[in-house]
């Protein structure tokens, strides 16, 4: 719910303040590790591999293993010196067609929402990109490093896709031979494809394993307290308010009448 990143889209001379919110979420069931004996939570303790003593965060430094059991030590100061200058601006570099970016480059999606004062410029950017059929390639700084982004206008708003850099994209790991195909085979395959074309409807697909897992957990919860499988009666707010109303109507002889003015003095300013 809280914004992941606050910054501003910089487009020519215009600065548009925006907040980025993650556009996807993990809905999977995650388990906690418990001690078999008494179902208590299991905690991690960091211990030194050689002396076995527990180490606190203050006693931990960072090293890079450049050879077996040989480390270069990298301090906070070292990192501070080389870190990218904090620039929260999402700087638009150029515009392009959506189809010119292969899907392999997309990493994580965010909704961009304009912050106070940026709505007009934001909408102007969205509409004009939409009508021109263009998207924007941009960069910003997230965490310590530079991040490549693209800004995609939609009917509802603006999506920001975090992208991989070219050197992070892997080639096909193994070559495979491409045998010759004859026309008949190709025509048959195309006919089959043609007969299976439907618009993509994401609501049709669910992770069936997760569905069964949730059902399993639901059953176990219900089984544990068969009596309380109905909604726990928290009492109803209407009942509460009506009970109060009845008490007031019954109390004293002023039933139903509006009382006389009896203002208490306001609390004093301090």
């Amino acid at each position: 719910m809280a914004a992941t990143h606050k910054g501003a889209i910089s487009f020519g001379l215009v600065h548009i303040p925006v907040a980025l919110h993650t556009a996807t979420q993990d809905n999977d069931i995650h388990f906690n590790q418990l001690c078999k004996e008494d179902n208590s939570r299991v905690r991690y303790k960091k211990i030194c591999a050689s002396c076995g003593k527990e180490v606190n965060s203050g006693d931990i430094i960072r090293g890079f293993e450049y050879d077996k059991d040989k480390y270069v030590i990298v301090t906070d100061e070292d990192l501070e010196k080389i870190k990218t200058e904090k620039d929260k601006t999402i700087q638009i570099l150029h515009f392009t067609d959506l189809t010119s970016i292969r899907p392999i480059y997309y990493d994580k999606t965010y909704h961009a929402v304009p912050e106070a004062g940026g709505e007009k410029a934001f909408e102007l950017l969205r509409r004009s990109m939409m009508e021109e059929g263009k998207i924007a390639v941009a960069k910003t700084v997230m965490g310590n490093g530079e991040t490549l982004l693209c800004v995609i206008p939609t009917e509802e708003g603006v999506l920001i896709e975090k992208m991989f850099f070219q050197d992070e994209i892997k080639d096909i790991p193994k070559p495979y031979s491409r045998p010759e195909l004859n026309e008949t085979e190709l025509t048959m395959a195309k006919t089959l494809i043609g007969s299976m074309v439907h618009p993509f409807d994401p609501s049709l697909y669910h992770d069936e394993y997760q569905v069964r897992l949730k059902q399993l957990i639901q059953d176990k919860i219900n089984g544990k307290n068969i009596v309380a499988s109905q909604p726990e009666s928290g009492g109803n707010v209407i009942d509460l308010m009506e009970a109060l109303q009845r008490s007031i109507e019954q109390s004293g002889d002023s039933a139903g009448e509006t009382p006389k003015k009896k203002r208490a003095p306001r609390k004093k300013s301090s």
Partner: protein
Amino acid sequence: MLIGAESKPFDDPDYLFELKLDGERCLAYLDPKGDVELINKRDVRMLSKLPELESIHRQVRDRCILDGELIVMVDGVPDFSEIRRRSLMSNPFRISLAADKHPACFTAYDILYLGGEPVVLRPLEERKDLLRRTVIGETSLLALSRVFDGHGTALYSLAEQKDLEGVVAKRKGSLYYPGKRTKDWLKIKNLKDDDFVVCGYIQKQDHLVSIVLGQYRGSAMLYKGHVTMGVSRGDFNIISRHPRADRPLFSSYPETKGGNDRAVWLLPDLVCTVSYMERTENGGLRHPVFKGLRADKTAEECVDPFQ
């Protein structure tokens, strides 16, 4: 429209009194032929967190915007920690488990638009009347706040007996000013708690953490002391990752007291609830206990009640 001041219990025929429900303020955009949209004070869409409320638009006669409180009832009274827990959830399975166990309720107390027309400039009693006529039938999911005409003290003592948050007094004839804080609405609190801006934190020995609290008076941030009890690990994770400020925002504060010189100062947009035994003479808190961060309020809403 926001509550502008705190008051002691009183009776006055010029006021309507209602229960102050311990929940999250929310606007409901309802269209009987369309759907439900719930927007909290931070402009966050709440329906995905409260899916049990997805059909409450069928309970109104016409398109309308209602102002009210999202609450969860536990043991017969609204439980703030439960609605707070819900509003921080995102996993749909956990949400559905919580919704089955403790369903939420939108309790409406005002109406701002009806059939596409604003009604905010109608007097309070007229809006209450429109609200009653717009909501077709109350259910445990969409209820109407009961109005107690003039009987402030009697309602307050009942709230006290039942350990409810308190009472709100609304001046008859008053208009609805969206987003504005006005003294036409007064709160009469029973539960001794308040919302504060998290201005910084002080890391102490033994994993203890003190939170430095502030409240606004006008545009100035007032120093409101520390709270150490009750700060949960989850909340501290959020607090410690929050963007920092170079220096405190207070115009004056005891710079050396309680480790203030070692404090990490934060940008003022986290809000927390703190309960206490009583307020000291100079507005400080006696025995403060941290009750949790709340995502439904903005920092600007945390104002010093003694202005």
